[in-house]
Each structure stands twice: as C-alpha cells, then as structure tokens.
C-alpha cells in the first residue's frame, strides 16, 4: 500500500508512518496482535490528509490502552471503560479534531459498556477500534465479556458460565452507523476497514479480532490458520455475493435463515448479495456468530456489516448554538442583569 501523501501540516514533506511513531518503547508482549494493529493504523494515517496535530487517540485501560503513548499525535490514556466518554466530550467541544478511540473487550463491553452504547447512539464522528482478544490480558488472564461459555481461565477454572456478548449485534442494537469486523492477521483487510471507518461520518466501530498469544493464544485460529480459514471466514463486499471457501461455497437466505450452498450447484449471483445499508440483513449476518458456535455451520463474516448516514451529535449541537447566537441575547451584561432589575438609590 502506498503511504506517501503531501504533509498537510504545511512543511511540504510527505508524512510517513514513521512520523506517527513516538520515542517510547512499545511494551506489548512479543508476538502480540496489537503490534499489527498499531502498524496498520500508522500506515493508514498519513494517507488521510489530516494534519498530525489534529489527530487525537483516546484510550481507557487494558493492554490496548497503552496505544496513545505510541502515537506521535495528541492523545489521552484515560481510565477504565471511559475512553468513549472522554472522547464524547472532546468531540463535542472540538468537532474539528480527528478522534480515534482505542479500546478492548473488557474496556468497551464490560466496565465501559454504558458509554460504548451511548457513544454509538449519539453518533459522534469518531472511530472506535475494539481490540477484541476475548480475554483480560493486563490483569493476567480472566475471562472477558466476549470469552465463549465454558472458557477455562484463572477466574473460572471450571469453565465460564457467562454468556458472551456479540459485539456486532450490540453495536447494531445501539444504533451504530458503521459496524465492521476485521482481524490483526489480515493487514490488508484491516487497512481497508480503517480507511472505510475513517471515511464514514459518524461513529465507526470495528471489532478487531486480536490474538493474545500469552493468555488466549489461538482464540481466532479458525479464522487465521491456513488450514481452516477459507472454510470459516466470509469477506463481505458491497454489492457482491456472499461466497467463501475459495469460492466453492455461498450463502443463501431461506426466509430469514441463512444456509450454505455449494457453488458447484448454484451460481454465485444467486447468493445473498451484500447490501450494507440493509439493517435487517446486517442483523442476520451478526447472528452467524450463534450458528457458528452451535453448529459450526456458518463462516464468520468480516467486513462492513452495516453503514448508514445519520447526523452527528456534534453537528446538531453546533447548529443549535449557531441558530441561537443569531436570535437570542449575546450580551453578557444583559444576561447578568436579567429581566427584572430594580435600583436602590
């Protein structure tokens, strides 16, 4: 991927991925999936035409949350679960900034679940990158709200009895306007998703499968290992049929029920054609998750599940302010005196 564009900050030199790296040592474990995500973001950013000083990364707590320290932009490593809330205030105050939220499955979906859904519903124009490793890494290996039931961890040695969240379904339910999934092991796809997320005006959410090679190694092996990935991954593309398994299989809808068909017996264009504006179909796509767990039958979709334009919170707020600046009192002294004044002489 070409990463060189003119540096919009004005010195004429093109920005490169290097410009976005800081002098701080990256402290993630060797082999962690976070490295790949950091690299893809650093690669994509210089292509966006946004000045470096207008870019802000906000994170909460967790392994992923160290991220802002490694980006030579403005940034804040806030507190657990609250990156979305901090970013909401920042974006409301400063719509001109390009705001990225770095979060994890514990940070966004457990302790910060409330802020996460409200950010999506308000549709701030920000990008939310969920580093989903289905485990608590920083606290050394407890199950997370995306860990599958039965997962054996330090905090559930006989297997977790928690039913996991489906992050895509949650984001759709929270009225997210851009909902996508990608993974650390597919850099090209991840870069595409980052670009698309950034282009979308509104809250863009990417559920990024990220391997924790220390506490949950291979959690996504089905989707990343050579032997299995073709049969278990489905890459969504707008206006294209849902096909997978090296184009040997496709998905059709039987009523509301997705079924796998062989492309030897069916033409590809008879398969389900992906329309990311269709929320009902997006919802069915999000539920492949359940079919997959229970039956092993359906592949896991990656790509943009749903995309829709809706006014952003910060624009509506700014519009209201402009409107009232025109028609209401703007004189501070008038405000202080109020309507009912009397004088003592």
């Amino acid at each position, binding site marked *: 991927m070409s990463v060189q564009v003119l540096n919009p900050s004005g010195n004429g030199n093109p920005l490169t991925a290097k410009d976005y790296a800081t002098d701080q040592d990256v402290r993630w474990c060797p082999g962690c999936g976070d490295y790949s995500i950091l690299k893809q973001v650093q690669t994509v950013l210089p292509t966006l035409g946004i000045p470096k000083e207008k870019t802000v990364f906000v994170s909460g707590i967790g392994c992923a949350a160290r991220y802002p320290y490694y980006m030579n932009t403005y940034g804040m490593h806030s507190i657990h679960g609250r990156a979305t809330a901090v970013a909401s205030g920042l974006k409301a*105050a400063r719509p001109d900034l390009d705001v990225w939220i770095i979060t994890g499955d514990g940070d966004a979906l457990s302790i910060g679940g*409330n802020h996460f859904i409200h950010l999506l519903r308000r549709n701030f124009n920000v990008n939310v990158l969920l580093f989903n490793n289905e485990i608590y890494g920083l606290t050394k290996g407890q199950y997370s709200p995306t860990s599958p039931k039965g997962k054996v961890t330090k905090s559930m040695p006989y297997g977790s009895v928690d039913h996991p969240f489906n992050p895509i379904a949650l984001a759709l339910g929270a009225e997210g306007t851009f909902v996508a999934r990608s993974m650390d092991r597919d850099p090209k796809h991840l870069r595409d998703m980052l670009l698309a997320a950034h282009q979308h005006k509104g809250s863009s959410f990417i559920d990024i499968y990220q391997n924790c090679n220390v506490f949950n190694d291979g959690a996504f092996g089905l989707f990343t290992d050579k032997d299995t990935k073709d049969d278990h991954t489905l890459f969504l593309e707008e206006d294209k049929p849902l096909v997978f398994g090296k184009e040997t299989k496709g998905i059709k809808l039987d009523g509301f029920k997705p079924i796998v068909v062989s492309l030897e017996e069916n033409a590809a264009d008879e398969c389900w054609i992906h329309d990311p504006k269709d929320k009902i179909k997006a919802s069915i796509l999000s539920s492949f998750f359940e079919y997959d767990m229970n039956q092993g039958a359906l592949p896991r979709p990656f790509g943009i599940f749903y995309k829709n334009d809706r006014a952003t919170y910060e624009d509506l707020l700014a519009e209201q302010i402009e409107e009232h600046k025109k028609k209401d009192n703007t004189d501070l002294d008038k405000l202080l005196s109020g309507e*009912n004044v009397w004088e003592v002489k």
Partner: protein
Amino acid sequence: MKEININRSKKEVVILFAGDSGDGIQFTGGQFTETVELFGNDISTFPNFPAEIRAPIGTEAGVSGFQLKFGSVEVFTPGDQYDVLVVMNAAALKVNLHNLRPGGVIVANTSGFDSKNLKLAKYIDDENPLTNDSLENYEVHAIDISKLTKEALKDSGLSVKEIDRCKNMFVLGFIYWMFSQSPDNTIKFIQHKFKSKPEIADANIKALKTGYHYGETSETFTSRYEVKPAPLQKGKYRNISGNQATALGMVAAASHNNFELMYASYPITPASDILHELSKHKSFGVKTFQAEDEIAAVCAAIGASFGGSLAITGSSGPGIALKAEAMGLAVMLELPLVVVNVQRGGPSTGLPTKTEQADLLQMLYGRNGEAPMPVFAAASPKDCFDTIYEACRIAIEHMTPVVVLSDGYIANGAEPWRFPTSKDLKTITARRPDENDFLNDKFLPYERDEHEVRPWAVPGIKGLEHRLGGLEKELRTGNVSYNPENHQEMIRIREKKVNDIALDLPDQIIHRGNEGADLLVLGWGSTFGSIERAVKDLIEEGVSVAHIHLRHINPFPKNLESLLKSFKRVIIPEMNRGQLSKLIRERFLIDAISVNKTKGIPFSVEEIKQAILKYQDHVSTSA
C-alpha cells in the same frame, strides 16, 4: 365593625405559603418576592418541595412550601419561625404549625379543611382545627378562598378546574393587602405571562383584586402591617437563586475570557437546575451535555478540557461519589476542571430534597492516592456566582481540578443580588506553552512555572503533540514513569501546586466583630446567614463574639492560623458531624468546639445564638 389597625410597622416578617404541590405555592411566593423587592425590602426566600413529584393530593407528603423573610433591615436568612402561615389545606397546617410563632397569624382556606382533607391530613376523628379551640393562641383567619374565587369568576367562562387554579391569586391579593403592598407588579406579570390567553389573564387578575379587596372590605381583620424599605447598598439589583448564580458565574467566566463553556452533567436533585439554566444559554456558545451517567459526565468534561474548553461537571453527593476516579484522573492530567457538588442529606440516596454539609471530607479526601484538589464553598445564593467564577479562574490559571461546594439550601434559596457588570469581572489567563517549555525542540508538557503550573497545550497546534494519562508521569516530559524517586517528587509537586494557590487568593477577613474577641464562630458554606445574624444580634447585646466564614477550605487562607489563634475560643457550627472542626483541629492544633445539626434543615439563628451563649459563658467563667 372592628377597628382596623392600619400600618402596624414591622422590621421583619416571615411568611410561609403552604399547600398542595398543585396549588401554585411557588408561583405565589415568587410573585410576593418580586413585589417587595421592587418596593425596596431586603428578602431571603426558600422553597420547600415534597420529595415525590406528585404525592397524593391533600396528604402531608404532598405539602409544598415557600418560605420568605422580608424586612426594612438587612435580611440574612429565610427566618426561623413564621409570623404568618398561609395554608391552602389541612395537611399544610398540620405539617407547618409547629414552626409558627406564638400569636402568629394563620390564613386558612376553609374548603381545604373539609372532612376529606381532614382525613387525608390524618386529623384525629376528622376534628377540624379551625373550629375547635386548638388554635386559640394564634390569630386565625379562616376564609373560604375556593368559594370566594369561584363566586368572583363565575362569569369568566372558564372551567371549574381553571377557576380553582386561580385561588392562589386570591391569597396573594389578600396578603398584599395585609402588608400594604400594591398588586400592580403582579398584574403586569400576569398580563405578560398570559398574553396569548387573555381570558386566563383576566381571571387571575380578577382573583388577585378580589383577594385584595376582601381584605379591605371584610370585617374580620384587625391588623394590617407595613414593612418599610431596607437601607440596601446603592446599585442595581435582581433576584437570584444559588443554582442560577452558579450557572451565570460559569457563563460569565467563559464568555468574559473567550473560553468555550462545556457543562457535562447527569440529572440529580438538587443540582439539575444548573443544567437547566445553562442549557438555555446556547447563544453564549454554551455546550451542555446530558451524559448517560455521572461518570460519563465528568469524563466528557475532562475530554472537553483537553480540547481547550472551560469544562465543568456538577452533581450532588451520590453522583460525586461516582465521579471520584475521574477526578483523580484530572488531578493526574493537571487539566482545568470544575466540579460542583450541590450537597444534600446523605449517606447513599439519603434526603434528596433536604440540605446537609456532610460532603466536605469526601471532596477533600474521597479519591485513591494522594490526590489534592482545591475546595471552595459558597456562603449564600448570590455568593455562588463569585465562588464559581473564582473556581474557574483558579482551575484555568493553576491547571487543576477545583471543587465548589453548594447545598440544597442555598441552591434553591434566593435573595436580591447587586449583580456585577462585565467590567467588574477578573480576567482569567491560561498558562499557554512558551519557549521555556521545550528541551531540544521537544515540547515538555509537564514543565512548570514557579507555582508548579504546567502549560495548557490544546490539540490542533503543531509541535505540541503530547500524550496525557492516568499513569504516573515523569517530571517535565510527562512520559510514563515507574521510578520511585520520580513518584515521590510528583506527589510533592502536585501538593505544592495546590498549596501555592493560597498565594493567589485573598487573606481571610473577619465578617463581623473584632480580632481577639472572646469567642469566634467559624463557619463555611450555607450557614453564613444564620451565623451572621446571630453574631450581629449578640454583638449589639454586648457579647464579645466574632464571625469568620471560609470560602477557601483547601488551601486555607494564608493568614487563617494567626487569625484563629487570636480568639479565646472557636466554635464551628456545621450541618454534619464536625468535618471542618476535624480539619481545623488537625491543622492548627486549636481546641475548636463542634456544633452539629444533621436534620436536613439549616441552623436557625436561635440555635446559633444558644451555642454562642453556652460557650461564651464558658469563656467568661474560665477567664
């Protein structure tokens, strides 16, 4: 006909209007307030709402009240005991009678004392207090206000329900007559308010005039009073409540100094009115953010502050508890932030509509780690303006979160305010990065000036890119550091930064009395009015007593210690179990005596006087 004793002159009068939530009590009280203010009286008011929004009609739980004290002298509080008790129903009498002074006046709406209302108010055997002898120590005026209003408006064309809603205007008209006040201001107000509904305006005005004339023509009344204007300081005045003053102070601090104001909050009693007031002032660029919860509110404010706004969050005790972690983050980030706590009775949900001062130690210490924050407290409704303005200045100029304490009593209470003009407002100047904040062309976000203030670098400026976070910072660079020496030094610096704020604040003054008096009453927050009045009265009686009231609780004013040590004895009245006392004793080794009240209601002047006399006595006998 009895002789009407016109214009019995009074220095001060306390009135309580009480009735059902739906009786228009707050409106009635508000109108009376406006009228006597225009007339030139000093006044202090306090509304008393039921905790439930729509408590059952006619029950004790549903009684709403509006208390006011107005006078021809300086008025400090809404008063201890009522001189006049206006009750629209039996429950209102039952709940409030205990606080009517012996010989006081009762104005009662008799139709609110029918058997149904008596039952709802739980009068034993439905015995009507207006007709038995139980009120013989009071001057009772039992008037069938509902019936008289109905009669007066029978040709108005309004429905029975609409007519019934005019009865509060009858009462107001009658009270205007009783206190020799003109109804003209209220007539004007009604005309304006119901511009588009002339039939409603006419009916209200007619009810008002009928009540007024009823006073004139009725044979029942023997007393009419006059309260002359008070010798207030010259100038222009308006009425203001504490929450309103708090909101206006925020707008003033932002607008006068070219900051954008962001107020992020979650609805909570009794702080919500700040959000309501601010949300009206969009024309001043005010951004209000009603967050999904208390934590989101403070975090959004922190985000806005990082973005360069004057960022404020407000709540009450339970909400503040939720914000504690993020307040610690603000301490670590060293960003400007103002946190307003409009205190209420606690712990837990406690008494949402009642007042208390029990969050002082929470604000000082209720965070993990060594996390010092300046803590300021407002003393009266109008003082909320100056206090919040100063808090905004300190937050911005010293790069720190600042706490402002108010409480339900002054938040909802109101008084005349000689409002400032923008020319009277102090300038607030942020410490922006300068050439000294760089090392080899690299920006040092945690470089400091002599008072440990770091530069406020706002995103969007090239060359100042930096990362903040809750992890311990390295000196100067702000990078993450786990170095033991660095951590200890940063803790010392953050503490010194807050302590140095004392150098930027005025010396403590003595509000009343003289240095070296036998007894000092030391207060903070909303006890100001009661203490001030008690001390004033007792000084006039020759007692050697003084009053000092603290706005700045952290850091304490730099002259406070020497000032306190000049008095033989210090008593500290607080609506808690002795929180300021603990601080004063610990900090200055002064044997301060704590005087406590935790009933959800403010100290009366009388209670403060009793405390002064009790301990003053000890001083004289031991001397």
